[in-house]
């Protein structure tokens, strides 16, 4: 059953992107997600963008449910269940976190949980400067934060994958954590294989129950909600649908 929580803070963190904070007294690991219920509107999966203390989600206004979430203010209430899924494993060694667009929301808690700014670098990509998320937060947790924008308005002009290629030519990493559009992850994977770097990728599929039952988030033989959303590069490599197909609400295969 959902737990009803009160929004304690709603803050704009990027163009059309807001972070909502609330008290939810359950252990949440970086990379896990909540099912967020807006009575009368919808219930949608949202990555935890804050896992310690006051929990949080970061929402981009892309549809009716996310718009309603973005319109919430302090004192409004929502229903939360979870956390669900399998998050990032925080290995030893040098780590590079790669976030595209709102993918940063799921990654930042992992970067902070590593707890050593010299051990983790961050690559943030977006279409333009107004969509770059959490730069200050990343800089507080990492000594080396770099950005890329498709239009060159900030950092390297190009994609997050271009940025990672540049960083890999200068630094050696033991593990890459990545979250962002699937096409970005799809092109990131062969680059990382070429450099022989292991990775963990947070993937997304249309989701109904969130709890491993209904199968609507099936990705090959995996259920994104319980087997993921974070998968290893080795797992993603073997997935036929990864980077190629998603499924719609009816479970029909659709080209990505």
């Amino acid at each position, binding site marked *: 059953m959902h737990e009803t929580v009160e929004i304690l803070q709603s803050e704009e963190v990027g163009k059309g992107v807001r972070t909502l904070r609330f008290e939810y007294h359950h252990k949440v690991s970086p990379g896990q997600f909540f099912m967020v219920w807006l009575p009368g509107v919808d219930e949608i999966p949202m990555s935890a963008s804050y896992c310690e203390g006051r929990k949080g989600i970061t929402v981009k206004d892309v549809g009716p449910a996310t718009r309603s979430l973005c319109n919430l203010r302090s004192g409004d209430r929502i229903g939360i269940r979870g956390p669900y899924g399998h998050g990032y494993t925080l290995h030893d060694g040098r780590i590079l976190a790669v976030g595209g667009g709102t993918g940063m929301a799921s990654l930042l808690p992992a970067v902070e949980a590593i707890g050593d700014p010299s051990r983790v670098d961050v690559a943030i990509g977006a279409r333009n400067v107004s969509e770059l998320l959490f730069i200050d937060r990343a800089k507080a947790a990492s000594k080396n934060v770099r950005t890329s924008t498709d239009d060159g308005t900030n950092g390297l002009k190009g994609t997050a994958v271009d940025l990672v290629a540049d960083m890999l030519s200068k630094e050696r990493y033991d593990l890459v954590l990545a979250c962002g559009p699937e096409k970005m992850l799809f092109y990131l994977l062969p680059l990382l294989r070429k450099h022989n770097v292991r990775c963990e990728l947070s993937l997304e599929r249309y989701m109904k129950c969130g709890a491993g039952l*209904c199968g609507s988030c099936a990705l090959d*033989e995996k259920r994104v909600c319980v087997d993921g959303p974070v998968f290893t590069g080795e797992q993603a490599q073997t997935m036929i649908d990864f980077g190629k197909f998603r499924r719609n609400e009816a479970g029909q295969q659709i080209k990505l």
Partner: protein
Amino acid sequence: MSSLQVDVAGVRLKNPTMLASGMVGETGGSLLSVAAAGAGALVTKSIGMEPRNGYGNPTLVELEDGYVNAMGLPGPGIDDFRTEMEVAKNGNVPIIGSIFASSAKDFALLSSKMEEYGASAVELNLSCPHAHGYGMEMGIDPEVVSAIVKECKDSVSIPVFAKLTPNTHRLVEVGRAVEKAGGDAVVAINTLKAMAISVEFRRPVLSNRFGGLSGPAVKPVGLRCVFDLYAALEIPVIGVGGIETWRDALEYIMAGASAVQIGSAIGRRGIGVFSEITTGLERYVEQDRCGNIQGLVGVAHEHA
């Protein structure tokens, strides 16, 4: 012959556990994952004539001892399901095609499609408690059930199973109607019609308001239904409802179930539940020296 092998209306299973319909089995890949987890057979998600999105969220309420769900029969429709079946067949486990329709004619058409796709049997969803015009609305009427089963039997040569609803006082009558119409087995039970209300928001939680209760909470009801059906019918009964352990499975088998289906436990216990149950059953059969699991079907009736 392995001690757990069972024969259900001519469908041979390596063990008596089956994936219940509605859980996971909407795609070929997810059916394969349950085959790999050790299920003796796979029942697909109920497939209809057309693609269907199902209900909006929330579609699931998690309770301490079960779930209330109202997915709303989402699915790709029978035409697109061909490719999923092709993938699922690589699991080398019998696949039972679950289908739903609003008329006997459509049920028959879906049945023959499932046969064509390689299903070992079809399971008629006469019991979904929350889809208007489908499922339980038809499955509580013995005459309607009889007409549907007859039409399907005339259309296919594979066995026809009917999944029944517990939301009726006419359960045994419906079971007899299935048998009389030539049905090869009954599956009991589907979920119990139920709901959940948010006290804080003062409204039903499910977008459809009503859903179906499953999980350990319904096990005693399922057991009673299986026990009644076994006593009344000659055709096999497949038991389903709240099975999470080998002991739960044995309760159903002793009540009269030739095989058991597992659904909610996949969410509550994980997909390893199939091998946990079969390992437990194997050990029981060995220690009991009862030879094989089939010998235990319905033994509780000796004391009834």
